[in-house]
């Protein structure tokens, strides 16, 4: 008889070198199952030790996302952007911190429809992103995808998916391809707290753990699934625990501090790259704007939003860090100015580029000719 196709993993991951002071893992876990070991490793070294240059770069990327999204909001108001448009304002530290830990062009990334920020964090030209938002032929999807459907296979950024939760098995498929080819790559699959309730997410957890796929599941918990607060839609609101039934270790991460995000990403990636299978990260963050442009935001108070903006803003936090390190106010202002310039250029490009040629209607339906 043939061998079992997928022998169940019986070996536990090697315990991380935790300092002696760290408490032993909770007794309810069997000794070989290090469900919380990654959380402990993260707790022991919470913030990434960035150089000034790195932190400036993170700051610039986060400011770029914010200014870009603000501009997209304006263009939407002017009728230049149509359909659905989901802004990433408030969540910038998540994409920037996580992406910074990936090997660009080697690891793959996939996300849902709130995708502009992820693309910008990957260094994709803001012009072609904005031109896609305005539905122009020069857009990254030639104007045929729009806000929710953007891709850059050159950057191994696989979208941009409009069906809530669909990116999770698709991401596991990308991870499967990495493992199949043995190329050492990892897939990072982002989804929201709302998507975390989709059944296909758990089908995927099961197979990803069973086959030890190299994937980091990232729940961007921004508190609201459209207008439904997490506690109104989720029986278990600690999303990092939701891998437990599949033996996937979870991490609970502050998503409003780019350095914490980056430090956590390194812990997760080290574990996954070592062939241990998936990790589930919960990034606690907050979306300042509505779910989409048409959201009246009646489901939360202004005070709640203001509290996050005033006391937890990831950009302001990074700025204060930079000032504390002695980086000059002028250097920071120079970045702000550079970003405003880049965003203004992207908006001009997106407004002035022509719409797709009518013949584009019929292209890219099929690749082959039959």
């Amino acid at each position, binding site marked *: 008889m*043939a061998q079992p*196709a997928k022998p169940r993993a019986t070996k536990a991951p090697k315990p991380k070198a935790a300092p002696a002071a760290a408490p032993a893992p909770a007794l309810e876990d069997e000794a070989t199952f290090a469900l919380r070991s990654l959380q402990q490793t993260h707790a022991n070294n919470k913030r990434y030790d960035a150089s000034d240059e790195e932190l400036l770069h993170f700051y610039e990327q986060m400011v770029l996302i914010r200014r870009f999204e603000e501009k997209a909001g304006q263009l939407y108001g002017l009728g230049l952007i149509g359909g659905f448009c989901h802004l990433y304002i408030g969540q910038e530290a998540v994409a920037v911190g996580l992406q910074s830990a990936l090997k660009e062009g080697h690891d793959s990334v996939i996300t849902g429809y709130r995708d502009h920020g992820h693309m910008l964090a990957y260094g994709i030209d803001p012009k072609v992103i904005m031109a896609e938002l305005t539905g122009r032929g020069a857009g990254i999807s030639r104007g*045929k995808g729009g806000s929710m*459907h953007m*891709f850059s296979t050159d950057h191994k950024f*696989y979208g941009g998916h409009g069906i809530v939760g669909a990116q999770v098995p698709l991401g596991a*498929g*990308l991870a499967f*391809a990495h493992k*199949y080819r043995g190329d050492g790559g990892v897939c990072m699959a982002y989804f929201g707290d709302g998507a975390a309730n989709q059944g296909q997410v758990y089908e995927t957890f099961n197979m990803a753990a069973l086959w030890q796929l190299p994937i980091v599941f990232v729940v961007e918990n921004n508190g609201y699934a459209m207008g439904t607060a997490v506690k109104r839609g989720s029986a278990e609101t600690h999303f990092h625990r939701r891998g437990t039934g599949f033996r996937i270790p979870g991490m609970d991460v502050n998503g409003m501090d780019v350095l914490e995000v980056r430090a956590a990403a390194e812990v997760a990636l080290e574990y996954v790259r070592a062939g241990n299978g998936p990790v589930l990260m919960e990034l606690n963050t907050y979306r300042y704007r509505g779910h989409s442009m048409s959201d009246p935001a009646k489901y939360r108070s202004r005070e709640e939003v203001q509290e996050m903006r005033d006391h937890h803003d990831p950009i302001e936090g990074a700025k204060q860090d930079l000032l504390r390190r002695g980086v000059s106010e002028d250097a920071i202002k120079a970045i702000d100015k550079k970003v405003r310039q880049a965003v203004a250029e992207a908006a001009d490009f997106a407004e002035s580029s022509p719409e797709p040629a009518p013949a584009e209607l019929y292209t890219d339906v099929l690749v082959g000719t039959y």
Partner: protein
Amino acid sequence: MAIDLKMPALSPTMEEGTLAKWLVKPGDTVKSGDIIAEIETDKATMEFEAVDEGVIGELKVAEGTEGVKVGTVIATISGDDEPAAPAPVAAPAQAPAPAPAPVVAAAPPPPPAPVAAPAAASVPAGAAMVATTVREALRDAMAEEMRADDRVFVMGEEVAEYQGAYKVTQGLLEEFGPRRVIDTPITEYGFAGIGTGAAMGGLRPVIEFMTFNFAMQAIDHIINSAAKTNYMSGGQMRCPIVFRGPNGAASRVGAQHSQNYAPWYASVPGLIVIAPYDAADAKGLLKSAIRSPDPVVFLENELVYGRTFDVPALDDYTVPIGKARTMRAGRDVTIVTYSIGVGLALEAAEKLAAEGIEAEVIDLRTIRPLDKAAVLESLARTNRMVVVEEGFPVCSVASEIISVVMEEGFDYLDAPVLRVCNEDVPLPYAANLEKLALVDTARVISAVKKVCYR
């Protein structure tokens, strides 16, 4: 008194099997639950258990005998002093009357070979032919493509160790190993998504659904993820994947397991939809599907898996996607059909010929993109058309063909086009009702006569 042990029906579609091995010999005492023999069906090797106590009398069928019909007496067992009560024999199936089961009615023997196949015959003259079942042809197609391209892998429920729920993937695990032949949990939505993602990541997955009825759980990924993403990405996101498995009515498995999804998938731009009939097309089209840079829905038919046809003995036999095939030439009327309908149409055509009506039979083979030219070209010659489809009539492939004919072939018509489809009801279980619901040769003949005004 001796009890006859009869060849059991071990699956809804089994008509015959191989008596692979006797595990008893005359004179052995057996009790209920003892394994008497191993019987190989078209799907699997099954153990045949005794249900009575007694002593084995005569073994009437030798070990290794193939093609033993269901209901044939294979051994006798003496009733251990007890008066022989006629007991049911086949433990696994408990079929009430094994012999002429309704199975036979739903699965007629293969119809006569095509009279002429002039169009799209891509086989070089003089090529040797090998008698092959559709099941084997599909397996051979996958195996050949897997040998040629390491990116090709097969994933699905029971495809590896079980050797395929319908035995289509038999032997693949042994040749290609667990890296490329992958058993999944019962989780269609999830593994269809993983397959689609793997295709986006540059591999060439063949995703088997145990039946397309279960692909309803996964249809979101087939349509929203696989079919649309290339367009939405301006051509960046390729998705070269094959979703394959049996489709349409099997035999008395009830409404949830009996549906033809060809019209559903054929309505979606971005998909290729293929539904072959014979073994050569099954092989040649599956190979083309695996090589296609586009997502393909490949619809097979369980009732056809076991039928044997000639397949060209060529190193690399492929059939082009998007080309219909004339299965039988005729001048009086065109019957357009696909999948299992081809068998019915050919059978009807033979009977009609005896009555002086020469029907041309066109097998669409690919449902999307549709070979409209082949349909219209035949209509231009015969001026009459019937569409035969094993599936619901409403919004069917038949409806689409009729629409094409209205738009582009109206002037050729000497009579309205008729469709012969299943009844517009969920497929019932009862043998008589199922038979009433499904397309059959008699209905094809009657429709043809109607359009011929005979």
